[in-house]
């Protein structure tokens, strides 16, 4: 069953579907604006016990229609395309966020170790009175860990805002490398130039603009990311979906928990939150502590390397950051709270010409010491849907997962990217809510996968079809366009067909995906790569046979093994009105089969600081969960009980573990360097919000804090703390 109406649907059926959509949107709006809760929806019978939208005519798109026959679903009305053809607009490169030296002089007020609780007036609609200017929980527990040791050297500042024109677009590449886009031209928030401009509260992005934002940093250079919340104070000003409170997760930063974007550490309009990203190699305090290994390093700005402590086998390259607001992550990320973050190191320098025996010389460019973006391209894939007026639209009522019918790349609908006849690196992020992609080139030419989840693989893997990329996974690939002639085009094609948001219904052959016969509008070509010229200088980039070998954990004893089971039909054991959620999805932990809904006040696991553990993640037959474990990179030891089932492209380090239907993943991780409360959850963000998420925290980090940690309870007037609602047995 597809959730989309067939192309030949009658006007009556489309009208009925549109009415159903409007009815649902009223409920979505009321929910997102806080007029009703998810508990209310259950109580009123509008959600089934399984979490789906009740089978009610005029509400659920799958209700059998009087105009339909048999089991043909009513479906949703298709997004209007306003006569636009695919591949009729250039793909914009990411908009690079300004890096500002000396954060203490640049930022006002200057950043502080503990949250800045200077009081400011709170709008009456948020309760009035006064509240702190910084939304970070106050006091020593949420102070930046090792602040004095890693004082920020770079400030990056952004404000979450409603849609507005971009007059400061900075792609950091010339127009010739950005498909001819003139960055000095004001860019309105449109997913296609011929589509309507998005209303200010239809889209909420970093700085309120598109293209999506890119942060850049190098190892050994601590960053202070100040995130202002400039969203409307009135929670109802959201055009029907999205929540104005936010928490920003640097996925998968190796930072202290106070900077992780904990789901319960959200902040309000008018506040900011200082996220401190030290950018250290994992093992900073236990491996290569004297910083003698030349492979553990950072670009020094003049062609050399600044050696740093830590394990260079833990070097990371491609991150992203996004909202993690409890129960509203799907809506907020979909609405635009998603950006990417490139990390640069001695190994992955972003300079293809420096030949020092350390630098891998991956496709990038050569003009700058590090961070050349000329041939190093970020791609964010996200499927969207639009209402009849062309405004971004969202539907929470399919708790299987939301699917859009318009695939965008860098928030542009099916664009064209101009390339030269040479090698390019593409950092591909699946920034969707529930859609998986399986990518091939339209001529089936080989691609070289070099990274998975932001980590360079031990060795490159040559593929003609990438594996399915789950939500939040990142695949770094290299494509060599020298095989094509100037004027030729090749397309990226999605082979993964969905019927629902639960999982891919089937992978199509390339022929079938190109045929246009799929009922899923997300299948087929989504990005044209047009070869426009020969490179001006020879391509000296490389794809070495050895990239970054895995850290060897075999000699580190396993302190504990844990099993987590991800399932539906969850129950809730707590009733805290702030931290406890209700939904069909949940996680069984602590050695039980008791599947529990999320409660960010519940502590479900407490690995000890400095140890290594093995975690087994179990899925179910009817769905595929991309499970994200915060903070530490893991290595997959087995799938379905055997290392032989782990393909080469998953033999590096990962932070999102796609379970596959009825699958089981066994992985190992260390817990080092930083402490606090972190999360584990499904990154199908609809599953996460409904309520497949748990909190775990690192015990005995040496910090003089209570264990388990008290739970932050944010309000506009300040953050209070409560004891955990529940601590599951170890």
């Amino acid at each position, binding site marked *: *069953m597809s959730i989309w109406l067939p192309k030949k649907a009658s006007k009556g059926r489309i009208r009925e579907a549109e009415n159903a959509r409007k*009815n649902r949107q*009223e*409920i979505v709006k*009321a929910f997102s604006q*806080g*007029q*009703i*809760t998810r508990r*209310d929806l259950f109580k*009123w*019978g*509008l959600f*089934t*016990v399984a979490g789906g939208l*009740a089978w009610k*005519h005029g*509400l659920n798109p799958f209700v059998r229609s009087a105009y339909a026959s048999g089991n043909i679903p009513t479906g949703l009305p298709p997004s209007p395309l306003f006569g636009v053809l695919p591949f009729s607009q250039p793909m914009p490169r990411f908009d690079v966020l300004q890096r500002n030296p000396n954060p203490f002089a640049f930022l006002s007020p200057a950043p502080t170790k503990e949250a800045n609780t200077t009081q400011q007036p709170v709008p*009456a*609609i*948020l309760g009035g009175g006064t509240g702190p200017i910084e939304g970070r929980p106050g006091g020593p527990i949420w102070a930046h860990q090792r602040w004095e040791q890693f004082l920020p050297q770079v400030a990056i500042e952004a404000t979450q805002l409603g849609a507005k024109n971009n007059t400061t677009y900075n792609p950091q590449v010339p127009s010739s490398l950005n498909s001819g886009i003139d960055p000095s031209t004001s860019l309105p928030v449109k997913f296609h130039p011929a589509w309507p401009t998005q209303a200010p509260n239809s889209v909420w992005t970093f700085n309120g603009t598109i293209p999506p934002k890119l942060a850049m940093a190098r190892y050994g250079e601590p960053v202070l990311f100040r995130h202002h919340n400039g969203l409307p104070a*009135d*929670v*109802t000003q959201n055009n029907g979906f999205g929540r*104005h*409170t936010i928490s920003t997760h640097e996925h998968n930063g190796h930072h202290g928990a106070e900077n992780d974007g904990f789901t319960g550490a959200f902040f309000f309009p008018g506040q900011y939150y200082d996220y401190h990203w030290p950018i250290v190699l994992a093992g900073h305090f236990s491996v290569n502590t004297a910083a003698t290994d030349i492979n553990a390093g950072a670009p020094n700005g003049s062609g050399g390397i600044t050696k740093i402590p830590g394990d260079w086998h833990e070097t990371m390259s491609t991150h992203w950051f996004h909202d993690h607001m*409890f*129960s509203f992550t799907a809506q907020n990320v979909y609405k635009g709270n998603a950006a990417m973050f490139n990390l640069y190191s001695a190994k992955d320098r972003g300079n293809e010409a420096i030949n020092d025996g350390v630098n891998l010389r991956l496709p990038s460019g050569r003009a700058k010491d590090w961070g050349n973006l000329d041939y190093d391209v970020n791609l964010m894939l996200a499927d969207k849907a639009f209402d009849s007026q062309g405004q971004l639209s969202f539907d929470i009522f399919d708790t299987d997962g939301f699917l859009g019918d318009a695939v965008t790349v860098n928030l542009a609908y099916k664009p064209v990217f101009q390339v030269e006849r040479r090698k390019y690196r593409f950092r591909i992020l699946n920034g969707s809510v529930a859609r998986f992609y399986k990518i091939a080139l*339209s*001529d*089936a030419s*080989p691609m070289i996968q070099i990274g998975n989840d932001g980590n360079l693989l031990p060795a*490159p893997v*040559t593929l*003609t*079809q990438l594996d399915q990329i789950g939500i939040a996974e990142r695949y770094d690939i290299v494509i060599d366009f020298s095989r094509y002639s100037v004027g030729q085009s090749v397309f990226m094609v999605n082979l*993964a067909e969905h019927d629902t948001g639960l999982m*891919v*219904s*089937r*992978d199509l*052959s*390339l*022929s079938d995906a*190109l045929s246009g016969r799929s009922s899923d509008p997300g299948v087929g070509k989504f990005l044209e790569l047009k070869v426009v010229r020969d490179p001006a200088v020879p391509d000296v980039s490389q*794809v070495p046979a050895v990239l970054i070998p895995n850290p060897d954990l075999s000699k580190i004893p396993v302190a504990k093994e844990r099993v987590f089971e991800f399932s539906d039909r969850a129950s809730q054991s707590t009733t805290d*009105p*702030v931290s406890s959620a209700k939904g069909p999805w949940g996680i069984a932990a602590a050695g039980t089969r008791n599947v529990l809904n999320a409660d960010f006040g519940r502590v479900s696991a407490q690995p000890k600081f400095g140890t290594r553990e093995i975690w087994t993640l179990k899925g179910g*037959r*009817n769905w595929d969960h991309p499970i994200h474990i915060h903070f530490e990179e893991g290595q997959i030891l087995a799938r*379905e009980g055997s290392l032989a*089932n782990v*393909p080469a492209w998953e033999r590096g380090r990962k932070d999102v573990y796609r379970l*596959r*239907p*009825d*699958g089981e993943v066994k992985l190992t991780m260390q817990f080092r360097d930083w402490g606090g409360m972190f999360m584990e959850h499904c990154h199908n963000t609809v599953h996460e919000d409904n309520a497949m998420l748990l909190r775990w925290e690192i015990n005995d980090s040496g910090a003089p804090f209570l264990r388990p940690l008290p739970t932050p*309870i944010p*309000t*506009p007037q300040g953050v209070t703390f409560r004891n955990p609602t529940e601590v599951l047995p170890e």
Partner: protein
Amino acid sequence: MNRNGKEPNMKMRRALFAPVVLAVFAAVFGGPLCWNGSPARAADVLSSVGVAITGIVTGQPESVAFSGKAVVSSRVLDPTVVGGVAAVVLQINLTAVSGVGSSTRTKYVITGPEIPFRKFVGSDTLEITFPFYASGASPNTARTGVASFALNYDLATGMLTSATGTITSPNF
């Protein structure tokens, strides 16, 4: 403050409209729907067959004739909900298939595997693409071939019973 960011004394606009509408929905249309289902088979069905496979991939710098045994492994997943569709996770391994260049007699190797996810039907025709390159050369020099398989399952047991395959040139 509750989970949805509301202060108890917070002034809400239009606070009553949606609940009233929803309450009417709930009253008129009744209670929730329960899904109850049981799997046809108690556990995943694992099976594997070897497939003798041959074929020629034409193109530059030379045509390559492939032969060997492909291994097709299947894991059939029955749905556990009413209306669900049985699915199969395949793993197709071509590493025991190799090629010989028509003019240089160079040996060509294939890496893998490919892991397609399909709906479970009695007979399935599946086409995958694969990279191959001269043995000892860099995988970065890879070319592309196409392998087509006809797979037959026992619908009752879920076992993969037979398979045939051929290798051809890509023509997309």
